[in-house]
């Protein structure tokens, strides 16, 4: 039977009403270039009468690997209704200027000319007062805005706040273990798993386009285990639900390792090669035995293993493979040091076992986690026997001891041989790959030749690093050159923790007893001062920031502490606050200017390229923007023109950057437009050219197939990447891309013996940095969560909600119709009853930091003592425009200031202290409402 259905002759008259609705004039490729990670959904955008009518998933994927389901039809309800926010009531159409006080909510429509003139003047005031580093912006992952924003701030020499350090999608524990946090399997690789541990993730909410791979894996024989305090929505299609006490996951994880080691079911050869658990540790100092100890010279970061036949063996820093050599994993040995003394050493695994056997047997862990010992043993044996994948979201990293949670997860995989092969691993996030986009806006001239020169210079730089250290792989050279290159500068705002400390009064919060880890011998301030003194971090200039330009950021919603922390501290220092957005945001409500940006489907853009999907997705310009909205490229270009004009009027010809560099006013426009090449005949930015050049340059980088360009993407749809290229995150995948296989990272490590980019050059579970030893965190361990916010009975958990991409589409009326239409928190029925609270009632949630008011949703899946406040509501959806972040102290774990130790050195995006918020303490009470 075929699909052909004849129109019914009797009724076709009225039926045409609906047939006529399903009509359109043009179809374009689309996607959502917001921070929807992994995102990358190929959509088709249908245009009728010059207006975007609707969108639908393209469903254009071919099968990648035979025997693995395809990616179709990637998308979600947000993407399927994005068009409805193009012309909705929260869409910004005209430049607005504040009248009245900040946050009063009164605006005048102004012309672009007047707005940009005034903003340019404020920028020049700031430059004349302190320098361009006081003109700042917060980083953004929003792919359509990141390039124009960065180009503008790079051109003027402004200050850039590290995005990842602000939002903390950081996975510090992965970084501490692997020297990188960005291993990411392609989503279809999940299908190969035999065991999936959904752990600090809620893929039913957050991986809507990919969840099917989990359900399909289960139908293919995989056991799915969901670990969460609440019986969260991802329990639905799991085989085992493990309700765990909040923030006790480290104990749960390492107890499984205890079982595996106790029962002798570990993958010992994998451990020997891939991890540092075979490295020798001194019993006297608890530090590694180093080459400098034994010979009195050589490298401090050169460690030893024990060859049962010949004794001490230098751990090979260039190649992890042991070719069958059974280095010792147990025993105690005497070693003679260069100073003539003899010390006892033992493999790190012995120290680990001793630690676990003493404190973390399944029976002992039950007192911490509430998980039954049988469950620990059941899952531990499964993981030891089967290809296991830990589905980790960006949730564990937001706990104070999130690194301990993640190190426990990594350890579980490390002792069971669960990385570097299909169906295994753990993940955070990665981007990169579309390298040409960066090259195209930074190269000195248009065309392939200039791009090739940039690429060659980059390669020469990597080679230099490899020459300096012959044990370094390309991956390590790339990381070192990034760390010592762009990472070295540390401008005013780069490290959010220092920015908040210097300008927003967070020191007081971080020094509050009880809110941090009080088991440490010293307080926050002492650690931070020592780190600064040691030179691990450069002291940034303390000049007050003067101009904030938010584009893709939303500081007041995003920052832990929100208005409570920022309005009295940072805001008064800022002479001008500008937000560039396609909608009204929480930060826009407290800004001086709000400038309307073009939406997706109204400009050329790409969704975030990611190893999860491995496609470059074009989101084309399908329609003109309504009102006076402009693309970010054009907003910044026209702002720069005003800036140059006003500077000349003031007689400014050049100005200094605090880094010692300078900017010449007469060169700025040329710098922004590549000598005018990217300017079109109407005096606007030529985005067709910028994006085409970017795609072609990615081809030159070798990450996209030959012949790919803007036109081919329009013709054929998304292009699959062929190589990860030489970005830090791309090379961190440490695997080739195969055209007919799912992607799994770390194959270069497991199959090729490439060392990990850690201090120890293997997956590092023993961290003998002095701070880690002092904190008793040198081995994966458990620590209780601090009582951040005060000693209150309720812990707040969060996570992305189902309904929005951060707050971006929250006010979309279609989406508002898919839930109660306003924020709520989920609470346990018994907790509610004890406080005399019913469903959909208004409560006041409070702690020593702040408070917010919100409606309740009473649900028995919530653990007693837990309050779930899903993240992503806009502040203005709450009473008094105060959301949950008003109660968050924004603590940072002090150990994040550690440095001077291989991979534990400042690294943009990857290593710095980051703010946490989960399991903040609070209580709540009913708010009596007038009827």
């Amino acid at each position, binding site marked *: *039977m075929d*699909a052909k*259905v004849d129109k019914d002759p009797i*009724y076709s008259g*009225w039926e045409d*009403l*609906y047939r006529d*609705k399903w009509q*359109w004039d043009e179809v374009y490729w689309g996607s959502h270039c917001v921070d929807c990670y992994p995102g990358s959904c190929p959509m*088709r955008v249908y245009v009728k009468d010059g207006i975007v009518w609707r969108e*639908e998933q393209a469903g254009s994927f071919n*099968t990648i690997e035979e025997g693995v*389901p395809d990616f*179709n*039809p990637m998308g*979600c*309800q947000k993407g399927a*209704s994005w*068009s409805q926010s193009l012309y909705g009531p929260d869409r910004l159409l005209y430049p607005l200027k504040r009248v*009245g006080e900040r*946050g009063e*909510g*009164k*605006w005048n429509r102004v012309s672009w000319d007047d707005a940009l003139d005034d903003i340019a003047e404020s920028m020049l005031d700031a430059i004349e007062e302190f320098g361009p580093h006081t003109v700042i912006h917060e980083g953004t992952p929003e792919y359509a805005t990141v390039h124009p924003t960065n180009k503008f701030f790079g051109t003027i020499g402004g200050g850039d706040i590290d995005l990842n350090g602000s939002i903390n999608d950081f996975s510090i524990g992965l970084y501490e273990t692997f020297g990188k946090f960005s291993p990411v399997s392609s989503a279809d690789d999940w299908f190969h798993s035999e065991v999936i541990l959904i752990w600090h993730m809620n893929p039913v909410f957050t991986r*809507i386009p990919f969840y*099917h791979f989990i*359900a*399909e894996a289960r*139908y*293919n024989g995989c*056991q799915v285990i969901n670990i969460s305090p609440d*019986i969260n*929505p991802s329990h*639905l299609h*799991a*085989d*085992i*639900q493990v*309700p765990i006490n909040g923030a006790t996951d480290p104990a749960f994880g390492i107890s499984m390792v205890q079982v595996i080691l106790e029962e002798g079911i570990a993958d010992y050869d994998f451990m020997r090669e891939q991890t540092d658990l075979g490295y020798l540790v001194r019993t006297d100092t608890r530090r590694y035995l180093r080459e400098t100890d034994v010979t009195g010279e050589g490298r401090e970061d050169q460690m030893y293993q024990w060859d049962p036949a010949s004794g001490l063996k230098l751990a090979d820093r260039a190649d992890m493979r042991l070719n069958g050599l059974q280095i010792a994993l147990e025993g105690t040995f005497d070693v003679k040091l260069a100073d003539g003394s003899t010390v006892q050493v033992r493999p790190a695994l012995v120290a680990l076992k001793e630690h676990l056997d003493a404190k973390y047997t399944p029976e002992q862990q039950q007192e911490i986690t509430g*998980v*039954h010992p049988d469950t620990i043993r059941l899952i531990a044996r499964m993981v030891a026997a089967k290809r296991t994948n830990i589905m980790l979201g960006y949730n564990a990293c937001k706990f104070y001891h999130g690194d301990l949670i993640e190190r426990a997860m990594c350890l579980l995989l490390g002792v069971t041989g669960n990385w570097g092969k299909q169906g295994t691993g753990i993940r955070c996030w990665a981007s990169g790959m579309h390298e040409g986009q960066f090259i195209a806006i930074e190269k000195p001239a248009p065309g392939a030749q200039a791009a090739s020169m940039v690429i060659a210079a980059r390669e020469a730089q990597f080679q230099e690093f490899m020459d300096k250290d012959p044990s370094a792989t390309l991956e390590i050279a790339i990381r070192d050159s990034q760390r010592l290159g762009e990472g070295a500068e540390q401008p005013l705002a780069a490290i959010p923790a220092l920015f908040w400390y210097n300008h927003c009064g967070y020191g007081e919060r971080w020094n509050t007893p009880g809110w941090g880890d009080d088991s440490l011998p010293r307080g926050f301030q002492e650690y931070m001062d020592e780190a600064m003194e040691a030179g691990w971090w450069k002291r940034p200039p303390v000049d007050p920031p003067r101009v904030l330009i938010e584009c893709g950021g939303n500081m007041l919603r995003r920052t832990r502490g929100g208005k409570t922390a920022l309005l009295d501290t940072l805001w008064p220092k800022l002479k001008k606050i500008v937000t560039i957005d396609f909608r*009204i945001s929480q930060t826009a409500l407290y800004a001086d200017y709000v400038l309307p940006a073009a939406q997706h489907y109204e400009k050329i853009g790409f969704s975030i390229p990611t190893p999860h999907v491995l496609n470059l997705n074009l989101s084309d310009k399908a329609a003109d923007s309504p009102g006076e909205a402009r693309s970010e490229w054009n907003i910044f270009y026209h702002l720069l023109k005003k800036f140059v004009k006003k500077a000349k009027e003031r007689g400014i010809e050049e100005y200094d950057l605090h880094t010692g560099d300078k900017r010449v006013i007469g060169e700025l426009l040329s710098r922004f437009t590549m000598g005018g090449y990217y300017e079109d005949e109407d005096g606007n930015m030529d985005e067709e050219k910028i994006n085409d050049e970017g795609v072609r340059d990615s081809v030159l980088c070798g990450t996209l197939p030959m012949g790919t360009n803007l036109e081919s993407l329009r013709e054929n749809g998304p292009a699959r990447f062929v190589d990860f290229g030489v970005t830090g995150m791309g090379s961190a995948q440490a695997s080739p891309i195969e055209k007919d296989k799912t992607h799994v990272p770390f194959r270069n490590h497991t199959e090729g013996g490439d060392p990990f980019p850690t201090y120890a050059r293997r997956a590092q579970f023993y961290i003998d940095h002095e701070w880690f030893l002092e904190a008793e965190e040198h081995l994966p361990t458990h620590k209780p969560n601090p009582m951040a916010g005060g000693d209150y009975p309720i812990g707040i958990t969060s996570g992305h909600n*189902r309904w929005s991409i951060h707050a971006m589409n929250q*006010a979309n009326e279609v989406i*508002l*119709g898919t*839930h*109660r*239409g*306003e924020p709520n928190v989920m609470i346990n029925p018994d907790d509610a009853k004890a406080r005399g609270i019913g469903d*959909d009632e208004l409560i006041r949630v409070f702690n020593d930091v702040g408070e917010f008011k919100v409606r309740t949703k009473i*649900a*028995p*899946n*919530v653990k007693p003592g837990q309050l779930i406040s899903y993240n992503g509501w*806009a502040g*203005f*959806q709450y009473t008094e*425009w*105060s959301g949950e972040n008003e109660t968050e102290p924004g603590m940072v774990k002090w150990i994040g200031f550690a440095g001077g130790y291989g991979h534990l050195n400042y690294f943009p995006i990857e290593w710095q202290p980051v703010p946490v918020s989960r399991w903040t303490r609070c209580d709540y009470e009913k708010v009596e409402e007038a009827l």
Partner: protein
Amino acid sequence: MNAATEKHQIAWVVDLNKCIGCQTCSVACKVLWTRDDSEKAQWWCSVNTQPGEGTPRGWENMGGGYDADGKLSPGKTPTPEDFGGGFDFNHEEVFYGGSAGKKHLEPQAPREGRWAMNWDEDQGAGEWPNSYYFYMPRLCNHCTKPACVEACPSKAMYKRDDGLVLRDEDVCKGSKDCMAACPYKKIYFNEEKNVAQHCIGCFPRIEAGVAPACVRQCPGRAVFIGWLDEAGSPVNRLVHEHKIALPLHPEYGTRPNVYYIPPLSPHPLNEDMSINTDKSRIPPEYLEGLFGPDVHVALKTLQSEMDKRREGKESDLMKTLIAYKWEELLGPFTADPALINAAD
């Protein structure tokens, strides 16, 4: 109704073990068909958390359908309050009204008795740690014996040769009898146009060989569509051969054509927090209440076929449910709408 429709019938199979309640089906349908202001509260396709009151609120207790003698059973006509939703919001006041935080964005509707399409999302039933819930999408069942068609006094309703149940909106007089007769309460009323409206099965798409929006746009790959009577089609095999896809509330007597693969669930825990492998988290009697007594065999089949794969054995059923190629879910309706010039 002619005899041919008994044989030729489009059917949906919704795999509740894949549905994640994301509402993409609901939203896809809404954006495509019910965007008029007069249709604001209409969700021809909607997903609810079970157990729950759903949409319209308490629909399972509103009657309709047929009695044991095959006669129309009396039913309640759901009110706009029962459906809820369709809220207006105060964007203007919040963004531009100078309230300085005194006004926040919220539905402009009375708090008392407030309800909406997905009001009781994720609430479910039971007690922690053994609370339970799952998601169930609902749309018009395009019944083989549609009570709405029989009840319509204006003869506005009809069943097409492809089995879709439609209403001629030019003929409909707004009597609402179809709403009372439909036991699934999936018919809405458009006050402005004075007509009842419900899911049209995306017939313009079906006619062009394109799967309905709720099917083609389901990112969970949870919905199969096809001719129920086509031997060998996934829909046919899941319903008739494997017998794991079941009608919702078969006792309503309308012979619905949206079938559901019932949900498995992780085991509950004992008092001491050990896993109780003798029980399923979702009480089987609750599922029986939804899908009838056949649900027990269906669940057993599903579990034993899953176990086969865990033991490394082949399972034809699992292959079908995995649907390695997306097109397998779409039956014969695999055409790409972007490649169709609809204006022709």
